[in-house]
């Protein structure tokens, strides 16, 4: 199989690492060669964070360069705009429409860009907007934004739903499972 390259982008603390773990386990269970790349340390402290997941028959590079991603799964709107050029020309951009102000916006030094999503639509980029924060609240916790988005990703993948559910079961702690399953379903049915 040709390599599938998925980028997960967001803000440090949003749970992008857990999402990439779930996705990685899904790919492993399908018998693919898999590589994931993460960022730890300083960059995790509320900064812009990126995780790469690649799977296929044989994967060499663990990272993805501009125009290299089949799917960019963005946990936040500004981060979606920032990393949109990593999407292949025929790639898909899944965007949680939640907006988290970066410090330069908080301090008033810069403005949060409000029109970028419209511009992306005008450029005919395949864009799936999701209000994952609202769905996560509906599932019972704002912390489940990541699993809602995994649900959306699962729907647009060609890997069976049960495989995703199994991976979530193996990744999240037991006591949060019910909430996360609800979050996954809400994302899957967007």
């Amino acid at each position: 199989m040709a390599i599938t390259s998925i980028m997960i982008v967001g803000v440090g603390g949003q749970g992008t690492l857990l999402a990439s773990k779930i996705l990685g386990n899904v790919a492993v269970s399908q018998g693919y060669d898999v590589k994931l790349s993460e960022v730890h340390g300083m960059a995790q402290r509320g900064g812009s964070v990126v995780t790469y997941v690649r799977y296929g028959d044989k994967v060499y590079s663990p990272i993805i360069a501009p125009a290299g991603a089949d799917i960019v799964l963005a946990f936040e709107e500004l981060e979606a705009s920032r990393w949109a050029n990593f999407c292949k020309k025929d790639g898909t951009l899944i965007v949680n429409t939640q907006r988290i102000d970066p410090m330069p916006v908080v301090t008033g030094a810069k403005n949060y860009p409000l029109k970028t999503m419209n511009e992306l639509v005008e450029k005919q980029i395949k864009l799936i907007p999701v209000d994952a924060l609202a769905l996560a609240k509906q599932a019972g916790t704002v912390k489940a934004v990541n699993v809602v988005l995994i649900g959306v990703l699962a729907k647009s993948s060609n890997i069976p739903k049960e495989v995703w559910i199994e991976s979530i079961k193996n990744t999240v702690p037991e006591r949060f499972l019910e909430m996360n399953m609800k979050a996954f379903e809400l994302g899957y049915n967007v």
Partner: protein
Amino acid sequence: MKEIMLGNEGVARGVFEAGATVVASYPGTPSTEITETIAKHNEIYSEWAPNEKVAMEVVIGASIAGARSFTAMKHVGLNVCADPLFTVSYTGINGGLVIAVADDPGMHSSQNEQDSRHYAMSAKIPMLEPSDSQEAKDFTKLAYELSEKYDVPFMLRLHTRVSHSRSLVDVGERTEVPLKEYKKDINKYVMMPGMARKRHVVVEERQAALQELAEQTELNYIEMNDTKIGIICSGICYQYAKEALPNASFLKLGMIYPLPAKKIAEFAKKVDKLYVIEELDPFIETFVKAQGIEVTGKDLFSVMGEYSVEMIAKAISGTNIETLDVKFEEELPPRPPVLCPGCPHRGLFYVLKKLKLTVTGDIGCYTLGALSPLDSIDACVCMGASIGMSLGMEKARGKDYARKLVAVIGDSTFIHSGITGLIDVVYNKGTSTVIILDNSITGMTGHQHNPSTGFTIKNEPTKQVDLVQLCKAIGVERVRVVDPFDVVETEKVIKEEVAADEPSVIIAQRPCALLKSVRYTGKVTVNQDKCTKCKMCMRIGCPAIAWKDGKIMIDHTQCNGCGLCLNVCKFGAMEKVGE
């Protein structure tokens, strides 16, 4: 059985399977998870040492005593333990010794971009470089055998994209390796001039043997393909280049010091055009050129930052990948990292900025106090440097200057290499004020214990360094403890201590907000009737507080109810709800 593992977990697995029994390290991104993973195995004694030098000395002792031993560090940690490193090269080892060092090209979480390969060459210690998690495990295991065969420590060079990438690893069993016999041998282990001169001869003989190993080892192999392009590379660059140039021929180097001169010459003859692809310095390229072989490397590639598949494809094949046109009308603001909501350091930096002090800083989460709106730090160089730098500033500009000067340093960093700086202040009659940010944990690297937390790497209770008593024993008579969230008291204490014409230490004590034991409750809301829109609360740089539509607003997905803003607002407009 195959498991998906971080490169760091691969190294840890290799250490485990090789039967190592003593491991000592100091945390440092991107190397930390190696030792954290090893600590889960009860067959291995593991510890967080106070710094990399002590860690290295512990594993040298363990090796001399006959145990397979291991230490891991980030690239700058290797600087800290360079002293024992250069001499253990002379003594050699008894039980196998492996030293892992993780470089950070692109500086994801580091203060410089140094290339550790130079250390292997200058210390005359062989170095292996894995390119994925499987190799990380295999090379580590092999390094133990080679270390014992050649009587030398082996270094393992890692890279952020190897350490922090996950890929599949074939997991094996642990082999228990009995302790080697320890025999007193002062000619081998006591490095005084008379003995060291003899050992230097041994080192040079060993160099010749290791050069032969480099020629013979299967770690260095040729993959012949189309002969138009030949690539010499190692580590992560091999992965990038294989994907970028699937038809090229490769000389893949798993052993990067010493380098195999004959094998390189043999490969060069077989290809029309030879390239070296290596991030950072032209380490391999310089060697190849010294052999009189024509090669292209840094003419095409930068000595700075990371490479990628696309960069290599473009530079060598001229392939241009069509990218999406995603230029936006509006500017995309950057998203620099920030102190977390509830971070204990925030209150302190708010006060330091208010007092307009000159601040020498140190390495940790709190280095973020340099960024807007806290803007509090003037200089940050390396672990422990804040205290020495503040003394230097005082000696350069005089005692009056010290009346508006402080050093800030974390608890773990103070233990690592701040104590000696403080001794210098006292001994050489400085009058600096040192603020120890005691958040009860090593924060930035992801919550590791240290000698000031009272727990070991295995979470066992242990003796806890008493920072107050320690400072007093050094000779600091003025030692104060404050809660940095009590901004009024903190301001008062800092003013008093900075004014004092003698050394002083302020310990700002409040645990990291991410610790499980820290449970802030409720959320803050703004009473808009009381809010005067003075924006004082925005000076603490809390990501949960924003100015929106002409009002101060609290983002409840970020607010954890820590309450610092209640202490900063003079009008009582911040109110806690939901407690």
